[in-house]
């Protein structure tokens, strides 16, 4: 990190500020948004940039999130570059439009600041809002720190607007733990970002609204027509995996930072056991791994950076042949015993050459995924590798769930 090959400067800013600055650097034509904790600061910052003239876009301050998503969808279909941001209740309130954007293949880019969903009222962190929208047909990316928030937003435009992809992208980052985290972020120069995004201008122009010409969007699809559109959507999603890897490599050559594409493997080469995590927890897990490595524990982390499409090929390649894998979920899959990411990985268990899987649920509703909790998870994953009896699912911060046997 920080081996920059181009001019840059480090600023201590929050994850929210990193998202807003990235949006500004991408020079969107239209931003429409509505504030919500813990995302509000993104909109505050963009409003400030807009008011000062630093950001030359149409800023639509809508009366609610549903309008925000409809506004950026329309602007995107008309050919514009767009941005919006939301969280939790806001994401739920725009849900029909979120689906419509995907169906229309509008290359909308947004950030979602992860928070628990409506039901039990909570202004607190958790990935349940991401899980609730996982099959909307969007590409989902997840950031670990403030720098990655900025970098992923920039990379998202390359992915969304790529002629071979044309899909909306949502960048997720943990509310509170990242949205309000202040740390040093290398903010690239405008010219560098312009250069990185300039290749989008050289590709064939996507179908956009042209005055005087007819254009149908949000079309009805019946039987075969519907299936054709859906299948095209699914195959574009699949193509986005390799495209994301390419973009990451090119990003590295320009900005000097590389993240490894769909998944990042941290100290995995000779690891017997691995934790699979996503988001801000990964920073904490890495620091615990460093401590345990000094004690001779052969442990690594696989960080999921792309969640939709589900990067199963990359996960299988990273996890294959390990003795045991502990999957950490910051959300729930109702009806399943394990967390959502655990449940999805389970479908590929037979390809993992015997690696055993165990599910950890933690970090819900602002529960802190502490170093102690990570140590517990590592110990249980080691126990599993050693052939000991380990429960399939553990709610790490709520022991009652484990003793009462709610099954």
């Amino acid at each position, binding site marked *: *990190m920080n081996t920059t090959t181009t001019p840059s400067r*480090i*600023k*201590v800013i929050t994850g929210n500020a990193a998202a807003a600055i990235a949006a500004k650097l991408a020079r969107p034509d239209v931003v429409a948004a509505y504030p919500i*904790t813990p995302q509000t600061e993104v909109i505050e910052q963009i409003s400030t940039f807009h008011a000062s003239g630093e950001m030359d876009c149409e800023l639509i301050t809508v009366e609610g999130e549903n309008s925000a998503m409809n506004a950026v969808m329309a602007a995107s279909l008309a050919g514009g570059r767009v941005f919006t941001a939301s969280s939790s209740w806001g994401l739920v309130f725009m849900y029909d439009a979120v689906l419509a954007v995907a169906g229309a293949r509008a290359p909308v880019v947004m950030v979602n600041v992860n928070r628990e969903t409506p039901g039990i009222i909570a*202004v*607190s962190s958790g990935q349940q809002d991401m899980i609730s929208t996982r099959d909307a047909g969007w590409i989902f990316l997840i950031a670990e*720190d403030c720098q990655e928030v900025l970098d992923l937003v920039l990379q998202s435009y390359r992915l969304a607007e790529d002629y071979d992809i044309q899909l909306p992208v949502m960048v997720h980052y*943990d509310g*509170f*733990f*990242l949205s*309000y*985290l*202040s*740390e*040093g972020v290398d903010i690239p120069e405008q010219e560098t970002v312009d250069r990185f995004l300039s290749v989008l201008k050289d590709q064939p122009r996507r179908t956009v609204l042209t005055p005087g010409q007819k254009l149908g969007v949000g079309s009805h699809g019946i039987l075969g027509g519907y299936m054709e559109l859906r299948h095209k959507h699914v195959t574009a999603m699949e193509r986005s995996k390799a495209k994301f890897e390419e973009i990451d490599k090119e990003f590295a050559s320009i900005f000097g930072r590389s993240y490894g594409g769909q998944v990042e493997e941290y100290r995995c080469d000779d690891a017997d056991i691995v934790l699979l995590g996503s988001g*801000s*927890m990964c*920073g*904490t897990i*890495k*620091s615990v791994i460093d401590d345990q490595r000094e004690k001779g524990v052969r442990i690594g982390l696989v960080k999921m950076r792309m969640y939709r499409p589900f990067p199963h090929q990359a996960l299988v390649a990273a996890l294959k042949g390990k003795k045991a894998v502990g999957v950490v979920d910051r959300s729930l899959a109702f009806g399943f015993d394990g967390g959502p990411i655990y449940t999805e990985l389970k479908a590929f268990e037979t390809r993992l050459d015997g690696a055993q899987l165990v599910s950890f649920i933690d970090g819900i509703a*602002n529960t*802190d*995924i*502490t*170093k102690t909790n990570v140590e517990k998870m590592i110990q249980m994953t080691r126990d599993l590798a050693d052939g000991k009896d380990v429960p399939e699912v553990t709610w790490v911060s709520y022991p009652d769930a484990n003793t009462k046997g709610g099954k």
Partner: protein
Amino acid sequence: MMSEVRFHGRGGQGVVTTSKILANAFARTGQYGASFPMFGFERRGAPVTAFGRFSDKPVREKTQIYNPNILVVLDPSQKKAANVFAGLLPGGMMLLNDKKNTDDVRHENLRKLAVVDANGIAMEEIGLPIPNTVVVGAFAKMSGLLDIAPVVEALADYFSGKKLAANEICAQRGFEQVQMIDL
């Protein structure tokens, strides 16, 4: 070497900004700083806790701080609260915003107590009882981890014009007027 600092105060006192300014100041010295607050619905008067990690190496932890070696208490009414001292490591330091140099704050692990009348200084310089910029100056002196210069420079990222000038004086006065007791 990483310092883990926990900040205690109330909404409106600038608790979050205190932790941000210090993270910013550390970054200016080529070190690393990371800070974040923990609160629910944002409102004035509610208790706010913030966490700061300052180190010569990149900070990757994204968790709250349970075993601080430094406490910063912006709200004098919390100076004896049990949760303030929870987990304090032996040899710990505490910076307290209080009117006078109280001798009634003690804890078995507290080795250094620093007191500054940050509200008083803030009233004189900016006309508001917002203690945060006095506290950041006092922090530099007490901790010995920072010079006052990067702290004052960092203020320019949060204030401008007359407010900046007044807050710079606040930080300077905090640095000069903080009183320290070895316990």
